[in-house]
């Protein structure tokens, strides 16, 4: 048994552990809540994950380079609101154009962060703490305290969350969920297969060595912020489609949720390691707990945050202990 463990890469072990925790969590809630394993509940969780997943993937790439992006929640708000507002006056633009605009808007916000971090040499926690406030302020001022309502949006966007690509039994694969999954698969393949993506890990695990190896580390960090902003823009679009009614507080608190998903997903907060598959599992786990607690009769929904905080702590502690004992095991065998 130990021999098998030894052969596995620690990352693989980490993802296996995460998958087991996720299954146990689902089984637990299934035993507590009537009709939990119904397609309706799965649809509910899937559409909720669809909003957070792109943000978590972007956050993961930033964290891999030893940085953090606390502004993602505000970027989601800006993208959702501005696109909704623009559609109110230009209802005829093509849907593909709308998505591109959301991505571009997010990328622009990300580029501001990235330039300050990578070229201005200001620590990312300072930059994104400030832009978290700045982007939100811009939105509040721009909106003049008015909200976007479903009636202002074109019909295709209002119908979008109901569009089903295919169904397995009575589980429907919604278009918004598919968009999010496609983004996850693209970045999963890119990060695990493309040579250029290895630079992300190189810069994160040892910035000095990366520079010596001829990697333009500033450009890598800048790119990770642009991608994070772009994915937050995508999340903003999905958010707009899902809710239809957008206020200036849209996306508030998503920065903490995304960092939680990334950390639970096994991305090392000191950079250099982590996988998109882990992030997907981490996001699903965090969101499953979030969505299930509201339906659990025994415990009031006010327990959500307390349990979420505890879960993150347990995940990180397990990760730390596992990595250390693995290192010891390996040391003994050599």
């Amino acid at each position, binding site marked *: 048994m130990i021999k098998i463990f030894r052969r596995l890469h620690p990352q693989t072990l980490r993802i296996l552990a995460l998958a087991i925790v996720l299954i146990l969590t689902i089984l637990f809630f299934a035993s507590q809540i009537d009709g939990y394993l119904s397609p309706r509940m799965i649809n509910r969780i899937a559409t909720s994950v669809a909003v957070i997943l792109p943000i978590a993937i972007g956050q993961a790439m930033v964290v891999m380079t030893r940085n953090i992006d606390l502004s993602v929640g505000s970027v989601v708000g800006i993208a959702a609101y501005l696109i909704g507002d623009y559609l109110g006056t230009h209802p005829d633009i093509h849907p593909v154009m709308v998505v591109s605009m959301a991505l571009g808007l997010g990328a622009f916000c990300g580029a501001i962060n990235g330039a*300050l971090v990578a070229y*201005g*040499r200001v620590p990312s*926690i*300072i930059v994104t703490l400030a832009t*978290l*406030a700045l982007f*939100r302020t811009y939105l509040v001022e721009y909106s003049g305290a008015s909200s976007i309502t479903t009636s202002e949006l074109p019909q295709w966007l209002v119908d979008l969350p109901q569009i089903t690509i295919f169904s397995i039994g009575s589980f429907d694969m919604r278009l918004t969920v598919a968009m999010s999954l496609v983004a996850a698969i693209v970045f999963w393949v890119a990060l695990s297969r493309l040579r250029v993506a290895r630079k992300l890990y190189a810069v994160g695990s040892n910035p000095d060595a990366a520079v010596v190896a001829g990697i333009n580390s500033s450009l890598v960090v800048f790119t990770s912020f642009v991608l994070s902003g772009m994915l937050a823009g995508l999340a903003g679009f999905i958010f707009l489609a899902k809710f239809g009614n957008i206020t200036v507080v849209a996306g508030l608190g998503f920065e903490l949720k995304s960092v939680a998903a990334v950390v639970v997903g096994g991305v090392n*907060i000191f950079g250099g390691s982590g996988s998109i598959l882990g992030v997907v599992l981490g996001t699903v786990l965090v969101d499953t707990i979030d969505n299930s607690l509201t339906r659990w009769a025994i415990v009031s929904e*006010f327990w959500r945050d307390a349990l979420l905080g505890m879960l993150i702590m347990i995940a990180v502690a397990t990760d730390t202990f596992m990595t250390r004992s693995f290192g010891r095991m390996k040391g003994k065998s050599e």
Partner: protein
Amino acid sequence: MILAKFKSWEGMLLVILILTVLANTVIAPQFLTLQNQINLFQLSIEKIIVVLAMTLIIINSEIDLSVASIMGLSACTFGVLVENGTPAGLAIILCLMLGILAGAFNAFWIAYVQIPSLVVTLAMLIMYRGIARVLLEDRGINGFPQWFGDLGQKAFLGPFPLGLFIFLVLLIVLGLVLHRTGFGREVYVIGTNAEVARFAGVRVARVKTILFILSGVVSALAGLLYAGRLASVRGDAAAGFELDIITMVLLGGVSIFGGRGSIIGVLFSILIVLNLRNGMALMNITGHIQTAVIGVLLIMSVLGPNLAERTKSPDKAKATA
């Protein structure tokens, strides 16, 4: 060399401070009265008390994101205890003990299990706030004893309210500890290089534990002052304060990488932020824009010196990057 840099940083803050005060005085002549200055402090008193503890934590190269949640937890616990008939005096002591416990719990994971403080306190930010929400759900509690509200609102010693008095005492005590004692030197040494400090015989885990317990108890105290000043508590009391608190520390010239900064710099930064906000309020600028201006100031305060350093010595800037 390092000393010269310290002096110039604090000098810069002093210039900004004088400019802000001058501008405010021109806009509103009644600005420089003692009463207005006391009111100015009183409006953010809970935050600036926690800023002092956070200064030591960041110089130690750690961060405590859970402070605002501990403030909220302490305030909510106080509310629930008083509502259920606990004497307010006993409730205060219990809340301070809760703060110590919360800080010690943070310290256990950070100092002994050695998980990064950013992760631990982020989880605790969510968890402590979650417990506060469990305690109060979506209701508010008021109806505290008269004397408790007075402590938060009215003058305590001369014209000074209790909060300001606590702030001044903490400022002097922590200033002396940080700059005049061996413990203070250890805080800097660990912040500069924890590994070297450990080999030099500094008990790193013990110093960190003391700092996080300090941060916990100071946050709990600030939470009580907040409850007293507003004469009511809700589950979201003090939510989001951590950002303002960290901003004030960093603006004071404390390096996010640890090992650099001073209490005087942070005091200047507190004065700048308070006066700037007050001045903007006098000009009818809303709270959101005020926060944005302080955000820009924060980025500029790090970006400016960085760019200046790079134009002065391009090789050195590259080497440290």
